[in-house]
């Protein structure tokens, strides 16, 4: 167990180091110079050169990399030469926004997908099961932003129940924070639950004919109770894997929903930073994403061992 944790941590650190090089290199290959953008049209080459000097982008790449890399381990992303502010608190702020949004959406998606997927599996040859499967296909086919627009036009514009967009931090007003969160969370969760329903369904279907379930049924348990007591834990592993992958993807993938609902999350920050060739900010955001993905993977790995003692023993 300890060995497993240790090797996981070592892999985590190594992956992060490799990621720093990959991210840094990719940003340097991207066409477009931050100094040219900052100087604007009509700028003389001297102005562009002075800006590049001020930004430090005229230094050797190794120096630039080392400068950034050494700061990372102190949790210091440096000062963006485009925004002229400290990157770390800004990224921390946006991470919070994205994590709130995505965690709530995934929780809601799971709350819908687990019962719906189980029902779809248990009743797979009945109309209700087929209906759930069909609905999940439809849900996957609808892009999240479209669902968002439909939700806005119905709940915000027609009924006037909820605000159409915007973000209010919880400390600024909790009810306002909640009311602005409902529609984007619904839009994200709608699509995610449709995806997850299929995985839950196939996972439950996969274990329904296992011997231990038949034994449980033979002891007198109803199909659902037998599943709940003996089956779901086994079915949880593939679902957990998919959930973790979806979670990491959604942190940035939510950018489309962020745009529809004007939410200042990590995805929007990344998009703006790429547009301005704010290389340091892009690198920092991507590193945070890599770290989140790796942490989620690490946690999921730990959860596997809790869920399945066989993995613990191995």
């Amino acid at each position, binding site marked *: 167990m300890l060995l497993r944790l240790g090797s996981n941590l070592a892999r985590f650190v190594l992956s992060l180091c490799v990621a720093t090089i990959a991210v840094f290199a990719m940003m340097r290959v*991207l*066409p*477009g*110079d931050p100094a*040219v*953008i*900052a*100087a*604007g*049209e*009509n*700028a*003389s080459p001297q*102005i562009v050169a*002075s*800006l590049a000097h*001020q930004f430090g982008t005229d230094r050797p790449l190794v120096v630039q990399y080392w400068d950034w890399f050494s700061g990372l381990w102190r949790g210091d992303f440096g000062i963006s030469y*485009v*925004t*002229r*502010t400290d990157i770390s608190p*800004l990224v921390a*702020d*946006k991470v919070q926004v994205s994590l709130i949004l995505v965690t709530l959406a995934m929780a809601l998606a799971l*709350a*819908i997908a687990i*019962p719906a997927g189980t029902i779809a599996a*248990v009743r797979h040859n009945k109309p209700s099961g087929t209906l759930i499967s069909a609905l999940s296909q439809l849900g996957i086919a609808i892009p999240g932003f479209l669902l968002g*627009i439909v939700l806005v036009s119905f*709940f*915000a*514009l027609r009924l*006037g*129940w*909820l*605000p*159409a*967009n*915007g*973000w209010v931090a919880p400390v600024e*007003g909790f*009810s*306002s924070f*909640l*009311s602005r969160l*409902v529609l984007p969370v619904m839009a994200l969760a709608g699509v995610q639950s449709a995806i997850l329903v299929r995985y839950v369904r196939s996972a439950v279907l996969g274990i329904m004919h296992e011997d231990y379930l038949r034994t449980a049924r033979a002891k007198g348990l*109803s*199909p*659902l109770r037998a599943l709940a007591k003996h089956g779901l834990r086994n079915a949880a592993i593939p679902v957990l894997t998919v959930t973790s992958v979806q979670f990491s993807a959604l942190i940035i993938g939510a950018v489309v929903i962020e*745009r*529809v*609902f*004007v939410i*200042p999350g990590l995805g*929007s*920050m990344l998009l*703006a930073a790429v*547009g301005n*060739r*704010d290389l340091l900010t892009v690198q920092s955001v991507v590193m945070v994403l890599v770290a989140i993905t790796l942490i989620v993977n690490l946690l999921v790995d730990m959860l596997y061992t809790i869920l399945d003692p066989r993995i613990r023993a191995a």
Partner: protein
Amino acid sequence: MQARTKARRGIRGALLGAALTAALLLSSCSAGAGPQSTDPDSLTVALTGEPVNLDFTTTAGAAIPQALMSNVYQGLVAVDQTGAIKPLLATSWETNQANTSYTFTLVAGATFSNGAAFDAQDVKFSIERVKSDAWLNGLKSKMDVVKNVVVNSPTSVTVNLSRPSQAWLYSMTTLVGAMFDASGVADLANTPVGTGPYTLSSWARGDSISLTARPDYWGTAPSIKNVKLRYFADAIATTNALSTGDVDVIYNMQAPELLSTFSTNPDYQVLEGTSNGEIILSMNNKVAPFDDKRVRQAVLYAIDRQAVRDTAWNGLGTLVGAPVPPTDPYYEDLNSLYPFNPAKAKALLKDADAENVKITFTVPTRPYASAVAEIVQSQLRDVGIDAKITSAEFPAVWLDTVFNKHNYQMSVVLAVEARDVLTMFNNPDYYIGYDNSKISAEAAAADAGDTTSYIAGMKNVVRTIADDAPVDTLFIFPNISVAKAGITGLGANSVTEALNLSTIAWS
């Protein structure tokens, strides 16, 4: 059988529970939502394009001056809605006989938001700073003509020019003329210090900038005390926010197709003004086939500008025929120079031996550009020019390839700089590559003359340029704003780089 009934009951119970939770969630949240009540002291304006920082002395782009000029920063002079120059921090000014020196009399009692008094020393400091290495914005060249600045008294200052220049006074109304305090320039990117009616109160990056009226403002106090500038990446989100009452004004709207919802609703007003921005179909005058005047003229005859505007921008915007907006003093309607005439275009192409020519059309990733590109492409195809559209990320890639490396044949861009006709055409190294030998002498003479000869001379210059057809000015970009009906004082025209908030009020 019993087990199945139980299971069914369980499912039903779960569904009911989920429905109840959802209903509760919705009802508890609806309390804080809905249109907000109107506070006469507050205003929320929806804008597109957030500034990356607040320092226009080292960062180009329209977003910073839009938020800060007129509101936080002021110049000695300003322009009104018709484009005429009027006093601001200078109450009056005089020029010498040769038009080489301007003596400004300054307002008394003006202060900066950091408490420092505004006087002639600040004028000297600000102008000299533009000329120094501290300013790293391409627009600083507007101040090249200044020889020196002499402080006569705390309220009088003389600016001496190296040659007479009509254009310089106009430049002083733009961001290069902004007045700074020597002790207030340490952190311009985050802490702007100006003499304007507002000061920055907070900036939630990625979301909004809040401005608060200064109680110690030297001029007439603005009616609205708290202004929030909210930034939207998506045009539909702005109209949604206006519909639900989250914002009061959408300024410089980028999606005219969304206007119909508001133009028929008495709760809103739609303002259609003009701007300094020209949608320019630019041709690289230094490379084939556009190094041949006949091919460029053929393009101008081939394109039905009215159809382009009507299709791409819902018929909004002004047709002008030359790269000069109607609010410029030397504007004249030149639409008749190159009327839509595909037959003539074909004849010119045949004459130039450029029939069935293939070109690359580099289109920046901006709404107006993609809206315009395809109809231009199809009209060019009708006369035998095969334009292949390639997209270039704006600004990063477009600035790099088209603007700096001149690596393009045809492009389309919104040229937003005010009075930029000489910037574009009086410099052969500019990306358009227009041979300025025919106009440079006349442009210099016009700039050196008095107002009348300046206007007459510039009209000649513009006619010469238009005849050479270095670009096709498709239309002048409209300034479209939508506001709640109760708002007054919002300027329809965008003749400066600023959104002036101090004149806006609730009726």
